[in-house]
Structure formats: C-alpha cells, structure tokens
C-alpha cells in the first residue's frame, strides 16, 4: 500500500480516456462502478470540453455482483454501439472491473464494429502508460499505407502524441505545424488529437514521424519505425536550443535547408538584456513528467542562467533519462510519485523558484516559494484562452514570461534588500506585480526541520537583527550555514562578526 495525499497520475483507464476523447469515431466501454464517472469532469471542467468524453460506464452496483455483471457489460456495449455508431470500440475495465474478471473482450463478440480490448493493469500501471498502450493498440490495428514517390511533392510527416487533457498540447501542435509549414514540410496526420481511425490508416504515407510527447507516443512511433521504416524525430522542441536542434533534425530527414526558418524567439535577447541579470544563479527546482522536466532543466540553466538545485520526475518509465540528465548537472534525480517525498526535497533544497505541476503549486503555496507550471497534472488555469504553447520559438517566449513572472523583478529585489526596514516593505513582501493577494513569504521551515537546536550557538541581538535583513528565501540557508560554521568552531554565541565570517567562508 502506498500512502497518497495527491497523485501525479490517474489510473491507466484515464489514460485510455485521454486517447478516446482526443480522437473522433472512437467509443470506450468501461466496466466500472458508479463514481468512476468522475473522470468525465476532467475533460468537461478542467479542459472545458464542450462534449462528454465518448465513454460508457457499466456502473455496476453491489447487488449486481451476485448476479450477472457480464450481461450488464454486454448490454452497455450493444447500446453504446447502437447509439454512438463508432468506427472502433475500445473495451476494458477500471480497477474494480478488473477484480471481477468479466473478460470484456469475450463479451463483445458478435458486435458489428471493430473491437480493441485494452488490458490496462490498474494496480501496476498509471495514466501515461495507459494512454501510451491505448494509442499503440489503435496504431497497430489501423496503421497502413506507404509513402508516395518523393518526386514532385513536399516531404511530409506525422505528428504523434497530443491528447485530450494534455498540458498545452492544442497550442504545441499549432506552433509546430506552423514551424513545419515555414520549413516546407507537410503534415500528413496529427494523432491522436482530432484523428479518426481512418486517419490512422494513412499513417504509413508519411516520410517520418515527429514524437512530441514520448510518454504517450514513443511506443507507437517505435512500432511505425519497425513496421513502415519511418524514422522518428526524437528532439522535443522545448526551449530555443532544442527547437533549433529539432528544426535541424527535421530538415535532415526531409532533405531541406533549415535556414529558411530562422524566425527566432525573443528569449535570447530578453535573457541577455540587462534587466535579466538578476536571474543569474536563481536556485530552481524542477519536477514533472520526464520530457518536460528534462527540457525545463536545459532551458533553466542554459537559456535563463538559473542554478539547478533539484530535478525529478514521477514518470518511472523514463527514470533512466532523468537520472542521466540530473547527473549532467551534478545532481541526483528524484524519481518518485510520492508527493511527500517531493515536498521534503523541495524544502531541503530551498529553491527560489519551483517549476513543477499542480502538485508543486500546492507545495509552494505551503512553503511560500514562487512556482510556475511546466507539466501535467495541471488545473483549469493551465488551459488558458490565449495561444500559449510550450514548444517551438513562440513556446520559448512563453517559458521566459511564465517562469520569470512569479519572481521579484530585478530592481525591486535590490530595493527590498537595501531598504528592508522601510515600513512599506513589510517582512516577507511578495513581488509587487503579483498584487496584494500574493502569498507572503515566510522563513517557516517545513514540519520536522529543526531551525534552532538547543546545543547550537545562540544568536546575539545584533546578529539576529542582521539575519532578518537577509532576503527571506535565502535566510534559512544563511542561518543554517552560520550555525554550522559556529558549531565547527565550538562557538557558544553568534555575533555579527560570526555572521560575516561564515558568509565569507561559504562564499569561497
């Protein structure tokens, strides 16, 4: 058993729902009790979809368990086919349905529609795996076709991976399609988002595949590579440098020159402009799905000049990639889907900014640390009305804005540090552009952390006063460093001199 306050991923059948909901002509019959229908609101409320997900739940009850739940499933499947007339029927079970072992596949024999039985083990796997497996099964069933001769036509590709409820998938697809258009590459099929089973049958006509979200589409792309000989673009275009590499990779596969598409991002200039100097060495902690976490680390360090103090993921399937990325920054990756572990690591590393998910937003609210969201799981405010991609050159602009915005602006930070005792700069003042409602910062250490231990040296009044002048987000570290410094030297009390000495010591 795993104690869970918040979960990063839903169960695997929710992953299957993300594929079914993204596509057209697909209906999913799920053997599940009432209550599991909550999943509909993920799509209708969080993503504001204007249609119900194409899912029929059998909603069996306790009184059905002694009777015939199999018959219930048969009826639900038959009714769904009759009412919705899908091109393909997905059938499967949620966690409880799995326990009653009714064999949905066998129960749909004789239906006048292609059926794909999904075997998604709820007690072992999670949402992204379920989405990946479902997309793979659909691709395996329907993918066909072969490229036309290259003479006299544009090179063309498929874009794979965008789903319903994906973090900025809608906007990423639009940005990447436009980038490919400027390069002179045609898009054959985008899938699963907006694709029908008939569209999947044309996947083989493309020259190559672009995998935007490996967690969702890498398995399917590997299959297509093996089956149809389609190479796949592996670079995920998040950040300026990665987008340039992506363009080069696409151009090489398409046999085109990449030079035509040098419509660049504002990020490099914004990052070099003097106002951005204050971003230098900001301590940032990054957590998310593997793809977004790895990409964010690169942008944070190489394009914004932050210092990376933590990198982790809940995507265990991609743990190796994240470990490797973390090692390249001299860090040990945090591979965990335990919210409490992540909270403890954030508290311990004392970042000035966290780039994470909706869950890290909870953590940061509690710890008083600025936070920006870079990865699913996300909430309703992360589906903005405006065009706001994460990928491509426009995506890089969005990253600059949304990561820098939660921080104190350059000049403001200096003024706060210089005039800490000004009555209007109340203790723990939050960035002024975030308004009066912004969460005030506190030095409050996380539960369990011992701030002042009895045997430690005592602070004298003058040193304590000076400590209070240190910006709040680094004060905890200054306090601990100074106390460690005093302890090593066997000092009974900490004076202003000790504070300065410790600072000089650790600055080396």
């Amino acid at each position, binding site marked *: 058993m795993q104690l869970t306050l918040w979960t990063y991923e839903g169960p695997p059948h929710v992953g299957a729902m993300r594929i079914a909901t993204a596509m057209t002509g697909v209906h999913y019959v799920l053997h599940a009790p009432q209550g599991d229908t909550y999943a509909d609101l993920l799509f209708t409320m969080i993503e504001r979809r204007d249609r119900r997900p194409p899912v029929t739940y059998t909603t069996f009850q306790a009184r059905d368990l002694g009777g015939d739940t199999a018959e219930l499933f048969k009826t639900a499947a038959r009714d769904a086919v009759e009412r919705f007339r899908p091109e393909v029927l997905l059938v499967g079970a949620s*966690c409880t349905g799995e326990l009653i072992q009714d064999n949905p596949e066998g129960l749909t024999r004789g239906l006048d529609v292609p059926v794909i039985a999904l075997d998604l083990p709820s007690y072992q796997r999670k949402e992204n795996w379920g989405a990946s497996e479902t997309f793979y099964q659909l691709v395996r069933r329907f993918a066909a076709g072969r490229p036309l001769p290259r003479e006299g036509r544009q090179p063309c590709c498929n874009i794979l991976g965008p789903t319903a409820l994906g973090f900025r998938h809608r906007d990423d697809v639009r940005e990447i399609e436009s980038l490919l258009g400027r390069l002179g590459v045609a898009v054959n099929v985008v899938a699963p988002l907006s694709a029908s089973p008939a569209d999947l049958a044309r996947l083989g006509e493309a020259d190559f595949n672009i995998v935007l979200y490996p967690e969702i589409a890498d398995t399917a792309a590997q299959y297509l590579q093996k089956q149809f000989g389609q190479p796949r673009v592996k670079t995920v275009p998040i950040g300026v440098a990665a987008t340039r590499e992506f363009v080069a990779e696409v151009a090489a596969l398409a046999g085109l020159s990449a030079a035509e598409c040098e419509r660049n991002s504002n990020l490099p200039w914004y990052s070099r402009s003097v106002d951005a100097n204050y971003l230098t060495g900001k301590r940032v902690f990054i957590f998310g799905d593997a793809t977004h976490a790895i990409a964010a680390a690169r942008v944070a360090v190489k394009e914004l000049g932050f210092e990376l103090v933590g990198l982790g993921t809940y995507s265990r399937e991609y743990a190796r990639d994240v470990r490797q990325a973390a090692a390249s920054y001299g860090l040990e990756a945090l591979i965990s889907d335990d919210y409490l572990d992540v909270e403890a690591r954030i508290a311990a590393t004392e970042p000035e900014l966290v780039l994470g998910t909706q869950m890290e937003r909870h953590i940061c609210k509690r710890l008083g640390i600025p936070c920006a969201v870079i990865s699913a799981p996300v909430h309703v405010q992360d589906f903005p009305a405006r065009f706001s991609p994460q990928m491509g050159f426009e995506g890089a602009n969005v990253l600059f804005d949304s990561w820098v915005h939660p921080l104190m602006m350059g000049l403001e930070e200096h003024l706060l540090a210089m005039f800490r005792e000004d009555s209007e700069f109340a203790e723990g003042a939050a960035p002024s552009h975030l308004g009066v409602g912004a969460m005030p910062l506190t030095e409050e250490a996380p539960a369990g952390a011992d701030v002042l231990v009895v045997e430690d040296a005592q602070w004298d009044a003058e040193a304590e006063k000076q400590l209070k002048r240190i910006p709040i987000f680094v004060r905890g570290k200054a306090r601990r460093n100074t106390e460690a410094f005093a302890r090593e030297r066997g000092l009974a009390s900490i004076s202003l001199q000790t504070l300065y000495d410790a600072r000089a010591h650790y600055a080396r």
Partner: protein
Amino acid sequence: MSAVVARPPSGCDAPPILRERGQREVFCGLTGIVWLHRRIQDAFFLVVGSRTCAHLLQSAAGVMIFAEPRFATAIIEERDLAGRADMDDELDRVVGRLLERRPDIRMLFLVGSCPSEVIKLDLSRAAARLTRQFLPQTRVLSYSGSGIETTFTQGEDACLASLVPELPGSDAKQLLVAGALPDAVEAEFAGLFAQAGVGPVRFLPPRRATELPAVGPGTTLILAQPFLTETTRLLEGRGARLVTAPFPIGAEGTTLWLQAAALAMGADAARVEAAMAPGIARAKAGVARHRPMLEGRRIFFFPDSQLEIPLARFLSRELGMELVEVGTPYLNRQHLAGEFELLPSNTQISEGQDVDRQLDRCRAAAPDLVVCGLGLANPLEAEGLATKWSIELLFSPIHGFEQAGDLAGLFTRPLRRRAVLEV
C-alpha cells in the same frame, strides 16, 4: 436499459415515479469526504482503495487548493492483491506514518472503497485493532464510501452512521440535529432554537471528534439533510425519536422544519412563531427579488445529491418554477413524506438513472434551466441549455431563512449571466 413507472408511494395524489437502471453519472460516497473533513476539524479520512479513488478525491476537491487536506488514500497495489504483502501489516504501517505526521488527529476514519469491498477487506476489524493501538490519542472508525454501495451523499450517511455507536448514552431531554451543515447555518438554527426556548440542541456531526453528542430515549431527532437513512435507523435504535418534516430549505421548508422540531420538544407555539417571524420576513423578501426571473420557467433536475426533491419543492412553491423532471439517485419515502405533500401532484420524479435516455428527455423538453453534475454541465451549455452545477448546492450554505435568498440567487445567476453576455 430498463424503465418502469412505479405506483405512487402513498396516497392518491402522490406523484408517479420513473425508475431507471443504466449508466449513472453520479459521484460515489467517497466524495462526501470533501466536505466532511472540513466539518469535523480533528478528523482524518483515509480511503483504502485504488489510484482511481485518490484521483477522484483530488479531482472533486480540486477546486479548493488546501495546503494539506485531512484526507488521503492508501493505494492498494499489485503486491497487496497477490498476497505478497500482508494487508493488515501494510495498513498498520500506512496509519502509523500518517498519525506520526499528524499528531493533531483525534479521529481517523478508514473509508472502504469499491476495490476494498470487492476483495472483502475487513476494515471494521482493522479499525478495532488500530483503536486499541492508538487510544487515547486517536480513535479509529470505519465506513464504506464505495460506489457499488453508496451514491454521493450516502457517503455522509455512512460516515455519520459509523459515529452512532460511539455516542455516549443519555436519558436527558434534548434535540439532536443530524446532517453536516455549514457554520453559518448551524449558528442560525442554534440561535432560533434558543429564542424559541428549545434546548438543549446538539448537532451531528460535531465540530470536533472529541465533542460527540449524547443520544438516548430523551432525544428528539430531526434531520437537516434528506439522505441519512442508515444514521436515522441507528439513532432510533439508540432510543432517539424521529420527527419528520419538510427539510429546512426556503422560507416555507425552514418554517415547517423548525415548528416540527420545536413542538416535538414541547415549546410554546406563540414563542416559536415570534422567534421565526423576522427570519421568515427576510427569507421571503430575499426570495421575492429572484421570483420575476424564475416564475413560469421550466427546470429539469439530473440526479445528484438527493436534495433534488426539497429543492424542487422550494423552486415550485416559492419561486413559481415549473418542474419538468426531478431526478434523484435514491428516494427515502419516509423521510420525504412531508415533501411529497407539497409537490405539485403531476411532478415527474425519476429515481436512479440511465444518463443517455435522460439526456434525450432533457433535450426534447428544452427546459430553461438544467441542474446537473460537472460532467454534464459544459456539454449541455454548449448545446444551448442553461445549467446550474448541482455540486454548488452542497458546497454553499443553502439551509435556513438567511440563506433562502442566496439559494434562489444560485438559480437565477446562470440566467442573469446569459442575459448580460453579448458574445
């Protein structure tokens, strides 16, 4: 799937009921944790279930960002099912970790789920074992919020029912109000009863797990919520005497409810009237402001919280709305008897659900307002129907005189908004 028109529950003018079985688009009983954990301030709710349960809770509670909620899920994993881990040991370990982190918790509910019920995990035995281990610091109770046994608000019923055996016994005369109410409403009722000379009055659930009300032969029980079937049965078993009345929603419902409770407690009728008079006047004035926008408009209820019947009665009698269909997941005929008497005799009530058929009926009827769950609201809005999220009716204070105007306002807001928008 199947639909039958049942005979009227009682009397000749009671409404016909359409019973349906099919896909039910409703929450399971676990969802009650979202408000119960705020109500009982030193209680913690540990669901023993699957990743789906954890995901449901955070999605249902997702609109509220808490620094740390007082609920969590012990997720059953493959190794638990395969018998490679002993479930009792695992549960002990998880509870130990939890209570170590939250020493402020005085009452821990182990909440059963669909998977725990299907594998027949005995949580009551686990609760007894853990109580022995953690008393006097923490008492451990159990109930089931599983979707195969409970629908949405029935989770609160199951939770309160699990408290009943823990209540101390007492023969003293008292009024016990059952059903979780927001602070403001509880204060209003306590004040009204005090002015009417009714007392002592206790509420279930209490604010703190350490302040459980007593129960016994001197207890007069009145329900503030229509979904407390099992809790009522157990309280009656402890000697409490149930007073039935319409539920305290709207000016009329609140008046009848307070009167019934007060008179059963032997209060002086004139004093009760005097205590209620200012509240009634304010409630009527508050409701009257909204009547022009709702009068003659047609409303359709999808089943959700079991509050549908009292709400429909309020909208029909105090706001002049026409009831197209009143869907409810489950009808307790005894508790709702007073409500049925006030409903128009031709009201179409439906119990249970086949969501696709009900959507067909709703579209065909083209009502002016649809009350439905979060899964249906945006799709219906996109089809041009105005909707009111039913969950807001549970998360807002709606009972009592002082809330009557605001309650009416919850129904006019979607219509006012449509009237204002030019895009």
